[in-house]
């Protein structure tokens, strides 16, 4: 009987412990029904999950700082309809399980109004399946992934894509190759998952013939594997090589090729073409020189661009000593679009009014990008095109011939055409009106 007694005692104390823990940490839900969750008279609370630590974090971990820098700038200038924006940042280490539990914390504990710019295809998929922000009516603004599926409004009703999809990028790249490198031997290195296969689909549709393709498993990229890629590319006599992978893979490919004195014409995908990250992982800027790169935002060194010049001065003040690179620009631009969406939703801000505002006015939002946003009642596609350029001897991406030539297309079977879009002037002081 002694042991039965003890067993009961243990079970009881365990239950007590759980109960105590539960009660102790239940937040005091002092929000009044007058406002939507995450909004009150003076504040709008937003949340983001992304890898701040771990293998996938380099480069991306600058994004929240960049977003905060812009939000703080807006807050200092009166906020959005009188409310200040706060951003709650959660590290998911690029693990889906973590992304789900952190998103749950954001929605259920921190009670954010909306999620902004959550990063990663697998993570966003897991969040959509488990947390299901769509069913909860929680807006997921401007996901930081180019997977074309997230623009599917039926599947992800509250999710908005921002980046051009990988399919679009591949199609446009194919067009660029036709124009500039016709008749050459083309090689492709791609990440062997949805990210890469999205691109493969695009290339296939555009009818690109590859001399060889090298798929690598995500996480395997490094000096050891890259030596294998280069050997294969060399064996196939590729004159032009597309690196369509993450930054670390691009860096590994470029670095190893340089060591092997292999210098084809490089074309870097936008995901892995971030010069700061590549340089930070040990590739000399000289190796990047003359490589072809793509972007939908203005070049980060283009100080004549009004957005770049304003954003870089805001960022320099907010995060002194940190380089203004493409990740920062992406982050600040996402924040900029977010502010416009919030503003458009009006003073009586609710999740519904936000979604409705994006659907109604999203295509007219100003942004740093050189392409339009394509939001409407039937589309959650963000930007839809790219310009191409070459990297300078210092490793900065500059447009061909000093001016931006923009190509645009869709994720389906649409043709690639030159864009005629003229970016509207930046709102005064970079504050959307």
């Amino acid at each position: 009987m002694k042991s039965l007694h003890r067993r009961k005692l243990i079970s009881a104390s365990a239950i007590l412990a759980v109960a105590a823990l539960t009660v102790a940490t239940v937040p005091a839900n002092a929000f009044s029904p007058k406002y939507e969750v995450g909004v009150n008279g003076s504040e709008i609370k937003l949340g983001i999950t992304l890898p701040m630590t771990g293998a996938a974090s380099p480069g991306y971990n600058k994004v929240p700082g960049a977003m905060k820098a812009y939000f703080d700038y807006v807050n200092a200038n009166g906020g959005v309809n009188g409310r200040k924006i706060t951003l709650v940042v959660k590290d998911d280490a690029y693990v889906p399980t973590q992304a789900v539990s952190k998103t749950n914390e954001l929605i259920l504990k921190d009670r954010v109004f909306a999620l902004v710019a959550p990063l990663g295809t697998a993570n966003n998929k897991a969040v959509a399946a488990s947390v299901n922000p769509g069913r909860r009516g929680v807006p997921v603004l401007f996901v930081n992934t180019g997977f074309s599926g997230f623009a599917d409004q039926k599947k992800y009703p509250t999710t908005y894509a921002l980046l051009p999809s990988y399919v679009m990028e591949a199609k446009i790249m194919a067009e660029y190759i036709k124009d500039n490198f016709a008749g050459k031997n083309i090689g492709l290195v791609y990440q062997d998952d949805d990210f890469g296969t999205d691109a493969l689909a695009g290339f296939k549709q555009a009818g690109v013939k590859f001399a060889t393709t090298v798929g690598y498993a995500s996480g395997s990229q490094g000096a050891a594997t890259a030596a294998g890629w280069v050997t294969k590319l060399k064996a196939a006599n590729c004159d032009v090589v597309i690196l369509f992978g993450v930054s670390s893979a691009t860096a590994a490919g470029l670095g190893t090729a340089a060591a092997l004195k292999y210098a084809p014409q490089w074309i870097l995908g936008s995901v892995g073409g971030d010069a700061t990250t590549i340089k930070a992982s040990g590739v000399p800027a000289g190796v990047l020189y003359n490589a072809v790169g793509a972007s939908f935002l203005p070049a980060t060194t283009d100080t004549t661009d009004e957005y770049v010049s304003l954003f870089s001065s805001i960022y320099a003040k907010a995060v002194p000593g940190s380089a203004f690179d493409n990740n920062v620009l992406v982050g600040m631009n996402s924040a900029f679009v977010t502010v416009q969406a919030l503003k458009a939703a009006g003073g009586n801000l609710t999740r519904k009014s936000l979604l409705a505002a994006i659907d109604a006015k999203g295509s007219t939002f100003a942004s740093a990008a050189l392409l339009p946003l394509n939001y409407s009642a039937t589309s959650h596609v963000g930007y839809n095109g790219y310009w191409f350029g070459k990297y300078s001897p210092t490793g900065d991406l500059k447009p061909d011939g000093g001016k931006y030539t923009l190509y645009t297309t869709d994720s389906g079977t649409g043709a690639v055409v030159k864009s005629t879009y003229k970016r509207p002037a930046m709102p005064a002081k970079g504050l959307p009106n």
Partner: protein
Amino acid sequence: MFEFINTLLIGITSGAIYSLMALALVLVWRSTRVVNFAQAGQALASTYFGFEAMKHIDNFWIALLIAMIGGAILAAFIEMVFMRLLLKHTSSGAIASVAPIIATLGLLEVIRALITLKWGGADVLIKAPLSNTGFSIGTHTLVFSPMKLAIIAVVVFLLSILSILFQKTNIGLSLRASAFSPELARLAGIRVDLVRTFGWALSGATGAVAGMLLVVNGNGSLSPASIEFSLLLISGFIAAVVGGLDSLLGTVIGGMILGLSTAFVLMYISDSLFFIAPFIILLLALIIRPQGILGKKGGRRA
């Protein structure tokens, strides 16, 4: 043919580094009968010591020496503080046999977290002292570069020093005696505790070299979450097991087998097998030669 030679050279260089890591594990195993899963963490920490040193003295070889000293001190500290306590407290009980393994895993976590706290999660760079541009034969360029040649030279040099130390000196005799029979060693007047600490320190220094060389064998970047370091832990362990855990020569052979077979699998089969290939090699080794390449029969039951 050219592809084959390149693969061979890639395999030999990474095999040399795996051998060193395996050697570090074997040194601890021989002195304490513990497989130290924190070894990769220690190597990572030592490499950061080397990185710090590089900031002040722009000389890789001096930094390497400092990393070795740092690694040795760290390892000695771990042995004196944790391992002694551990062996004292858990000499019996249900998990006595697995307690050291679990504790070293805990240490791995702690070391990694501390490194991230101190140096952050982003990449830092260690500049290779020699060119990583491959040698050319006619119009072909090999993967083999002055840096890689130096890596192999360092490994061979270190292995020679260690094998002389082990086979020809009294320190080596003390180390071996303490490993095989601590009680007899004590009866022969050997201060076994001290010898153990020395064995750990030696292992820490060896691991530090493995870490430093790993970084300059790649593109020179270093981060706490680096895949290379997780792989170093696994590869080092597998190389040590394939070699038989007790033999220095076996360790080198094990490292080479692992380096070469991984390189060939990646080149000729698939990149996707990058992580699973070492495991398959381990399984094959366990099935074909359960006692290790140079191990004695029945050696798996530790």
